[in-house]
């Protein structure tokens, strides 16, 4: 398996703000990695470093290249859609195709045209005349036609309605992704990408809180909703997070065998969204009113 992204002690400071505090990250080919974190967590700084858009300290290799020094070479094999549509507003749809065809050796124009035919986007239209969803479709059409090894998506569906968001990810999975390709996607709408990720990376305050393949999540994390009489016993097993849902308490356990927890109540593998919420709490802050009363 080839390594697509390899970061060791990746650090980025903006003045006194420490955007990235020594991140270690390995992304293998053929994975769909969700880089998930709240606003200001360092997601975008990490993405920018990976794309060669910013300087950084520490080690970082993307497809074996130093992104900041070799951005133009790297971009032969990396595609990128930024958080909001960044296609220039003055450009015509046909001109975007002409331009990418002119500068990108791995762009297959016919493919982009084929995709655009399925949309309502006219070739003569300028980007400023398109709706936000259409601009994203256009950008997606360009990206789908580039035979890249790594696709980076930074909040690609921000501000789009549900139909566009759904079809965006469906298209990505059906028409683009294959075993040789790698997708790195950042979002704070975890539910949206949950079903397509193979790996999750949680990032908070410039540090990685969790980095794991989705299939291994079930081995590490269990969510337990204990029956009321089992509550003290469950709590004694040391959940790292608990919250009240409809009068019942949901607890999150790390590194506990699911068989040990099953007698205490309902168990299941937590969703990525649940896990995200649980992991993103500042240490100790989870202590629930119930726990306080009990103490």
């Amino acid at each position, binding site marked *: 398996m080839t390594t697509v992204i390899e970061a060791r002690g990746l650090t980025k400071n903006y003045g006194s703000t420490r955007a990235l505090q020594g991140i270690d990250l390995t992304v293998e080919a053929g994975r769909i990695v969700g880089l998930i974190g709240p606003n200001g967590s360092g997601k975008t700084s990490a993405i*920018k470093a990976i794309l060669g858009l*910013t300087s950084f300290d520490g080690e970082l290799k993307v497809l074996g290249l130093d992104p900041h020094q070799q951005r133009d070479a790297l*971009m032969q094999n990396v595609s*990128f859609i930024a958080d909001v549509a*960044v296609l220039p507003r003055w450009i015509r749809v046909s001109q975007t195709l*002409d331009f990418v065809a002119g*500068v990108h050796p791995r762009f297959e124009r016919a493919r982009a045209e084929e995709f655009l035919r399925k949309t309502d986007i006219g070739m003569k239209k300028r980007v400023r005349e398109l709706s936000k969803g259409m601009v994203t479709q256009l950008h997606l059409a360009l990206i789908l036609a580039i035979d890249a090894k790594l696709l980076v998506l930074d909040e690609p569906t921000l501000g789009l309605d549900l139909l566009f968001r759904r079809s965006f990810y469906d298209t990505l999975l059906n028409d683009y992704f294959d075993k040789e390709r790698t997708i790195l996607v950042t979002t704070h709408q975890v539910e949206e990408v949950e079903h397509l990720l193979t790996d999750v990376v949680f990032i908070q305050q410039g540090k990685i809180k969790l980095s794991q393949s989705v299939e291994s999540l079930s081995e590490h994390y269990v969510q337990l909703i204990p029956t009321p009489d089992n509550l003290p016993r469950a709590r004694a097993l040391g959940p790292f997070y608990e919250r009240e849902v409809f009068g019942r308490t949901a607890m999150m356990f790390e590194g506990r065998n699911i068989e040990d927890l099953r007698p205490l109540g309902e168990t299941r593998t937590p969703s990525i969204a649940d896990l995200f919420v649980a992991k993103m709490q500042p240490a100790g802050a989870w202590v629930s009113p119930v726990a306080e009363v009990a103490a």
Partner: protein
Amino acid sequence: MNVLVTLVKREFWEHRALWLVPLLIGVAIVVLAAFEGVHVGDRVNISIDLDSSVAANDLEPQERAALQSLTELPANKKQTIYLMTLVTFLTVHMLAIGIVVFFYLLDSLYSERKDRSILFWKSLPVSDGVTVLSKGLVGLLIAPLLAIGMAALTQIVFGGIWALKFGGSSIGSVMPAWDTAVWLKFQGLTLLAFCVGALWYAPIAGYLLLVSAWARRNVFLWAVMPPVLLAVGEKLLMGSDYIGEFIGRRMLGVAEIFSVDARYSSADAGEFGAAAVQPIDRALAAIDPAGFFLTPDLWLGLAAAALLVFAAVRIRRYRDDT
């Protein structure tokens, strides 16, 4: 190479003034020539009405005399008058494209940051060096060459209109509608002057690119204020004028070689009409941009331009403010 061609095309897509302005000026001159009076230079002011038959009779006695003397000029002086129309059209085109290019260069590395499309351009395998180079190339070489081409075309079409409107009339006999030898020689001189001009103005282009890559807002003020403040400051503090003269010479110095009208018309401002016109050979000889290649300032400026463009490339590459 394909990449560079695409990048250049891109500039003309975004900045349509680069080709629209020369086109519109060409059309405007032709339309004016076809339907209105024609003013050729300061000295020979020939106003011609729509109906050419009345033109000569409606003139003031002095003007009639001047026109009369012009119709009797020898052929080599009539060629000079023809040359003056060529110079005039070229000058109009070059002044216009100069203004267009000034604003184009200022905008070229700024607008992509303002609308954040730089994230799109940078997502493609194009280096910052080639990108900045393509913009400098468009501003300094391609857009002016296009304007020169439009000026040449304007001259040709104007010649056709002149022949159709005034062929056989006394006004038509003042100036030939077309002179292949003079036209070709002038185009050659224009291209030579263009080479000199491009080299001479390279540091200004580099400066504008640098400001465009650097300024966070108000590119125009950032471009104009520092030189003005330096010049004014020097004047106020030291009483001298070195900076102002230096900048002035860089802005207008190249005009020294193009200020041909003073040379092919006579030095005596009082003269009017035929005597003011020199034979074509002397007029052409007076335009000699080749000597400018020997100016050390030209080559020093070029070195400065290289540094300025290099700085602009570095800023585009390393700046992170999107």
